[in-house]
């Protein structure tokens, strides 16, 4: 009798629990076929993201010099790799310029992305053609476009110096854009922004299209102009999308590698050695995989923190 009551209680409890808290196994049993469908993707994600991530964490606690691994298993060294990096002045320099680089890239990308999105949202003949052509920089592989830009910036044969000297700026006739610390830094920022603006612009354009016309019409009746409609309606209504785009751009730009590597290789004189390149150099230049993994972990944590802050801000605004 008591057993039956227990079972009743149990079943009652089970009936009242929400599906989310049901055990994973039951969930799989119930939606078996659906889980079967996502299984390949899950296996893929596990194999190419989770396994390497865990391995990188493990390696970051080892002294892992590639030329030594035939002779001995890489020994655990605790936090020594992290300590070495945090006391390395190059790391702090790289971190500083990576933050500046990311800040400049994200700000400029969002600014131009928004401008282009608003422009494309207007009705003018041929705006579809413009919208498609805006996408072009985004579809060119990054390394290919970086090589292209390297030629544009070339001090002797670059089209940029050619144009500048043709319009009267003679002093730019052989200006070495990539051989000066300041100009090399900004030259790469221009390329990264040029290449990330299309995605942001198209995403924002899609967002703008979702804002119902009635809202704008109501504002117009109240006497709102273009500026007010943009700042008081469009941008606030796109806030979530903008936040997500900022988070994504921050992640992308913080780990910049290919454009910088092709165009400057971290030079001149190490002035554009962003964390991405520094990590690569630690891994494939110095063959110190332990130090490189520790660097990658530090970058990972930094990006996670930034992302968490953004998302927190986003959620707080939603509850207001």
């Amino acid at each position: 009798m008591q057993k039956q009551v227990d079972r009743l209680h149990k079943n009652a409890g089970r009936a009242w629990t929400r599906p989310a808290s049901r055990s994973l196994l039951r969930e799989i049993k119930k939606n078996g076929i659906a889980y079967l469908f996502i299984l390949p993707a899950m296996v893929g994600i596990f194999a190419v993201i989770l396994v390497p991530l865990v391995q990188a964490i493990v390696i970051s606690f080892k002294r892992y010099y590639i030329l030594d691994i035939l002779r001995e298993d890489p020994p655990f060294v605790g936090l020594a790799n992290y300590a070495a990096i945090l006391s390395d002045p190059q790391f702090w320099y790289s971190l500083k310029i990576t933050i500046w680089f990311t800040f400049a890239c994200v700000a400029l990308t969002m600014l131009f992305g928004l401008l282009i999105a608003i422009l494309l949202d207007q009705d003018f003949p041929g705006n579809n053609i413009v919208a498609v052509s805006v996408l072009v920089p985004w579809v060119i592989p990054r390394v290919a476009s970086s090589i292209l830009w390297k030629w544009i910036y070339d001090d002797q044969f670059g089209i940029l110096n050619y144009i500048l000297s043709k319009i009267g700026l003679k002093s730019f006739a052989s200006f070495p854009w990539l051989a000066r610390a300041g100009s090399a830094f900004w030259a790469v920022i221009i390329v990264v922004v040029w290449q990330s603006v299309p995605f942001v612009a198209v995403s924002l354009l899609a967002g703008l299209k979702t804002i119902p016309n009635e809202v704008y019409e109501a504002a117009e009746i109240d006497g709102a102009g273009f500026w007010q409609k943009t700042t008081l309606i469009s941008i606030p209504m796109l806030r979530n999308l903008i936040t997500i785009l900022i988070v994504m751009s921050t992640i992308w730009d913080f780990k910049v590698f290919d454009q910088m590597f092709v165009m400057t290789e971290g030079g001149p004189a190490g002035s554009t050695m962003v964390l991405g390149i520094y990590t690569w150099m630690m891994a494939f230049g110095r063959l110190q995989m332990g130090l490189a993994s520790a660097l990658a972990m530090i970058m990972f944590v930094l990006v996670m923190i930034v992302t968490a802050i953004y998302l927190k801000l986003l959620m707080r605004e939603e509850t207001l």
Partner: protein
Amino acid sequence: MTAKSKFSRLSVVLGVVLLIMTMTVGIASGATTLEVWMMETGNPDGAKAFFNAVNTEFEAAHPGVKVNLSWIPWLGAQQKFLTSITGGIAPDVAELGTTWTPDYAYMGALEDVTERINALGYASEFVPALVESATLDGKLYGLPWYAGNRCMIYRKDWLEEEGIKEFPKTWNEFIEVTKKLTKDLDGDGKPDRFGFSVNGGSQHEFMPLIWMNGVEIAIQTDKGWKSNVDSPEAIEAIRLFADLYLKHKVSPEGSVTWSVLNSRKAFTTETLGIVIDLPLLVDRFQNDNPNLKGKIGVAPIPAVKQTASFTGGSNVVMFSQSKKKDLAWDYMRLLLEPKHQLAWADLVKFFPARTSILKDPSIANDPVLSVYADNLKYGRTYPAIHQWGQVENTKILITAMQEILLEKKTVEQSMTDLAKAMNLLFGYQE
């Protein structure tokens, strides 16, 4: 059943049969395969033809043996070698760039071939720089194969215009020549033709000046290898080079980050008078710009206290994992036969590792190659230690030079910092 589906079914059956046949043939013949990795060259068709001939000869001399040759692109080769070594699937024989040989030797991946080389009978005639690159702790881990050194390639006609009949033999004379060649041709107040390029983006041009001033880049002490770039002689040498840009202004403004690719471009387009480069460039310059035909001269690098040039090239190595070491050695030896040495040298425009072969008329009577060949004895290579790869790959040499050229640091400061950075990589402590 339609004709089409009948056909497709037939093709599937045929495909499976073929697959089974090829698999069983492979098993049944039980051929011994010698795995050989060679680096890709600028002349792939010629290289393939060369190795077809070598492999046919080898297979004829070793019945039942098949050579399986793979071409390895330079880009990403390091990763390919490292992963195959650690994965236990390294080839039997491979070509290895001189600066990589110490890395893999230190790693324990290469077979010690000292005794085999000494038994060859011609071990004493190898180009010294190649032997230096293949030696670790007194043992040889590679068979020197071919060498490439650098000389000065210059515009004969421009020198003649200035009344200079002979290329300078000392560095001070060289400075004067580069000053004369640097010119403002369009009258805008800035030079648009330059005597020389300092190529701040590659080290093979400026590092040899340290040797030329009579000292070593690094020295072996009882506490391990120690950088010597902060010695007074080295500092003086680097200053001599940097002054071409800073003081004499005979080098283009952008050459702070130039590599040989840029200086070659400038020489081809006739905006640069002198470059330090490999022999194969002499032909290439004339092919790319026919206007340069007959106007190019070559000369040894002018001496500071002596001349020197960075000499690279390749060794052939056998991996310690190989289970066919005697066979591998036979193959390596075959590549060193005079006829193959000459054919390969002609193909890749480098020099045979055996200096006796340099006397062949095809080299000794060639006005360009003979200059280079005569200077091979002054060829030097960077310290053959496993940490050297890190010195190059982390670009600290280039960074140090760029800091000087951009006047971020003085030569003394920059070289002192470079010595510290090198000692850190060497694991050297005072």
